[in-house]
């Protein structure tokens, strides 16, 4: 325990240093780089700012709900007057504003219509539209989202309870059903917990799809396609954006028993896996957050920049992602990009101990893929970005709530500056690889240079305990064919296979005008190839054995990426180390030194131990809990290749 505490402390030192250094560097540059600015939306002092729902009424009024159960209306956002419309609701997590006198909300136990029948600005009628799903008062039993489709149906979703807290068995709403479908820890004791649900206009409930764990975000595309985000954990290896279709099962088995065709417990995981429909887009854990919220579509007609028609998804971490969807062989899949990221301290992420001070639900696996992002200049993005809505003026309102998982509640808006961002705009599947398009003309020489591109792929397994990335491989780039105008590029991939998430990370890529890509990272979820091929291998086992990976030897290029993520701030890009940010008396090792006492003069065995366990008496944290042994070997290979070779200048 003491060792763990010490490790956390040293992480803390490193993290504060990382953040401080990065902040200093970023502040001067960021304003010149960012095309989107973050603004605070002032909230009334009487409102507890745990914003859990954001919507706009047809006349432009802003409507927000908070977890304290209130509904507030602002008559002229962002600076208009606020008044409280309703109160006393049970943790509403979704809101739909029909007008400023009629608002629908999802509470834990029901869908409710609030009506101001007297016109005094306060709801006097709280009408139960539907409460046919069961609740047990468990803390994790949230009811999420609210959208209305073209037929007038209300769309919502329910989450599963968590046995870290009690279930009300003494006074159940209906007799509880605690039968397990397949070894699940999170149960579905009440009917339709873990489901996507539809309430038709006359108030009847229609269960639509099952298999959700914590379906925190409900969204509707402009074409009427229903999507839900689900959150990583047991059976849901990474967070997802799911295209909801009637009768489908999306992975978490607890809710499966509420299907009409349920035949009893499913003993065989493979049978369960065969029933599961894949997500449209995976949001890789750690790299693209940990707990996604509400997906919203940019229908602003260009007032939010060049991403019309794309999906924006807030995350519990300081992240908003962007998703490009396409239909391939009749099913949605697509690419996920970071859109706005802000610095998150590693210490905060490491606080994920399952206790009530849980900060970022990233876990060890997520931490491994966490990218240290420099803090933004100006107003920072808060965590808890679970609810979003586009305003009539084209800005994106972001409601934030973090209760129990961190700190930082409120309401912010993202405003496009009008300056064209330098971003990868889309990533589409082709028969030979991918087509990337850009928001601005890019440097064609860089586009055509293989050194610019790092392309890899990996899978997640379908397992009760969740899954790390498996079957990770570098991808061979068969060809790079930039368009004449530098706005797009065909990328050929050798051995293009379905069932993998392809990660593309350009390095140093700039626009033709010399501006860097703002978010040089994208993940494409390749469920189906253009000719309809799908993955036919085992869904719960890796296809590349660990031994085979180990036999391939250390990968210095992979080590370079890890160095850039975890090591560079203290040891510097040139490996010279030196005083730590904020603690100059603590010097990081200089890998350029030569001689018997130089760091790299030690044998590999000693250096691997140092990286794994941390050096004695020095602030560097142990990386054994963060990196796999193979990755630590990769880092060492990079250190030797970059700083220890004969060509490297020793000092």
């Amino acid at each position, binding site marked *: 325990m003491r060792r763990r505490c010490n490790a956390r402390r040293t992480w803390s030192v490193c993290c504060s240093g990382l953040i401080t250094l990065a902040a200093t560097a970023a502040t001067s540059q960021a304003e010149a780089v960012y095309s989107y600015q973050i603004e605070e939306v002032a909230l009334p002092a*009487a409102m507890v700012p*745990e914003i859990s729902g954001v919507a706009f009424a047809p006349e432009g009024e802003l409507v927000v709900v908070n*977890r*304290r*159960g209130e509904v507030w209306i602002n008559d002229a956002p962002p600076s208009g007057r606020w008044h409280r419309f309703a*109160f*006393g*609701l*049970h*943790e509403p997590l979704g809101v739909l504003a029909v007008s400023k006198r009629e608002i629908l909300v999802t*509470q*834990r*136990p*029901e869908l*409710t*219509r609030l009506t101001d029948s007297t016109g005094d600005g306060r709801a*006097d*009628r*709280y*009408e*139960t539209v539907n*409460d046919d799903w*069961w*609740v*047990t*008062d468990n*803390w994790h039993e949230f009811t999420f989202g609210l959208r209305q489709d073209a037929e007038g149906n209300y769309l919502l979703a329910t989450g599963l309870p968590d046995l*870290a*807290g009690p279930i*009300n068995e*003494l*006074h*159940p*709403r209906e007799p509880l059903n605690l039968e397990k479908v397949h070894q699940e820890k999170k149960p579905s004791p009440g009917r339709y917990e873990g489901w996507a649900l539809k309430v038709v206009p006359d108030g009847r409930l229609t269960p639509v799809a099952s298999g959700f764990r914590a379906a925190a975000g409900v969204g509707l595309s402009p074409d009427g396609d229903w999507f839900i985000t689900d959150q990583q954990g047991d059976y849901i290896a990474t967070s997802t954006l799911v295209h909801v279709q009637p009768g489908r099962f999306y992975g978490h088995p607890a809710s499966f028993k509420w299907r009409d065709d349920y035949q009893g417990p499913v003993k065989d995981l493979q049978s369960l896996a065969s029933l599961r429909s894949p997500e449209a887009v995976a949001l890789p854990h750690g790299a693209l957050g940990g707990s996604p919220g509400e997906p919203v579509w940019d229908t602003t007609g260009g007032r939010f920049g060049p991403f019309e028609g794309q999906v924006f998804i807030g995350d519990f971490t300081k992240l908003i992602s962007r998703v490009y969807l396409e239909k391939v062989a009749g099913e949605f899949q697509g690419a996920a990009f970071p859109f706005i990221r802000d610095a998150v301290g590693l210490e905060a992420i490491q606080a994920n101990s399952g206790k*009530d001070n*849980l900060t970022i639900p990233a876990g060890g696996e997520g931490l491994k893929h966490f990218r240290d992002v420099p803090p933004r200049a100006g107003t920072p993005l808060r965590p808890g970005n679970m609810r979003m809505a586009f305003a009539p003026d084209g800005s994106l309102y972001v409601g934030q709530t973090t*209760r*129990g*998982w961190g700190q930082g509640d409120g309401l912010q808006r993202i405003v496009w500056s009008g300056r064209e961002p330098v971003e990868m705009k889309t990533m589409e599947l082709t028969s030979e690889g991918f087509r990337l398009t850009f928001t601005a003309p890019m440097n064609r020489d860089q586009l055509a240079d293989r050194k610019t591109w790092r392309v890899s792929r990996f899978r997640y397994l379908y397992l009760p305990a969740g899954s790390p990335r498996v079957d990770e491989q570098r991808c061979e780039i068969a060809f790079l064919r930039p368009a004449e105008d530098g706005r797009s590029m065909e990328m050929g991939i050798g051995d293009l296979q379905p069932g993998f998430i392809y990660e593309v990370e350009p390095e140093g890529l700039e626009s033709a005008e010399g501006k860097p890509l703002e978010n040089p990272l994208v993940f494409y979820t390749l469920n189906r190839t253009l000719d309809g091929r799908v993955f036919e291998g085992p869904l719960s086992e890796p296809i590349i054995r660990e031994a085979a990976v180990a036999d391939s030897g250390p990968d210095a290029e992979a080590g370079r990426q890890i160095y850039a993520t975890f090591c560079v701030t203290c040891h510097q890009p040139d490996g010279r180390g030196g005083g730590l940010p904020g603690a100059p008396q603590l010097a990081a090792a200089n890998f350029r030194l030569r001689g018997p006492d130089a760091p790299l003069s030690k044998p590999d065995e000693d250096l691997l131990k140092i990286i794994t366990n941390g050096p004695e008496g020095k602030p560097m944290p142990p990386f054994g809990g963060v990196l796999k042994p193979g990755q630590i070997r990769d880092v060492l290979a990079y250190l030797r290749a970059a700083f220890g070779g004969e060509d490297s200048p020793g000092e």
Partner: protein
Amino acid sequence: VTRCAYEWRHCILLPWKGAAREGVLWLMQNSIAPFLLLAFFSLPSAPLCADEYPRVYRTFMPDAGPSAFAVELPPQLALCYDPSRGGVNSVWRGGIDLEPTHQAKINAPAAVRGGVFYREIEASPWRLGTPEAVPERRLNGYRYEDGVVKFEFTLDGSKVVETLREDGGGLVREFDLSAVAQAALFRVEEQPEAVVEVTGATDAGGGWWRVEAGGAFSMRVSPRAVREGRP
């Protein structure tokens, strides 16, 4: 800390009474006048439910079904209304503290602040037509109207309106069954700490009261101590 937070809430809700307390709280927080602090807590507690309007909160309630209601009726009455059971589960003089329900990730039920004088044990106190016919009870919602709260529910699909109001320190429940096409039976339990009086229904024996089709009746629940003139 909990009490401070609670009192602060009431300062906001009761601005005309809150100003003095706000000042005391400020002194308290700045730790410059401990004697005032002592005097503050020595003062008789202001009514916890002294707003002019009733308030309904859906929340985690102790000894109730999931997502029940806490109802505060001015000036000093509160109750738990459980839509998955008979309606009013318990009644007390005082108020409700919601702070335990939203302080952390895993929360506790709301805290009852005051002495409970009425507690309903029967989970299904309604019958329709015959003493054996337990109807399905579904919540339709509630509304604020003319300074009272009116809950609406259905018994086997027929609408019933239940009005809740405070009267003389006790609770009055008024039931409108004008949309119910059958005679109804309602069970009233013996209460050691409350006097329960029914008006408009016929005593059917065994604690059951009968109201004819389309009828209405009311039920007054008074603290026995108040009725008997005890403190």
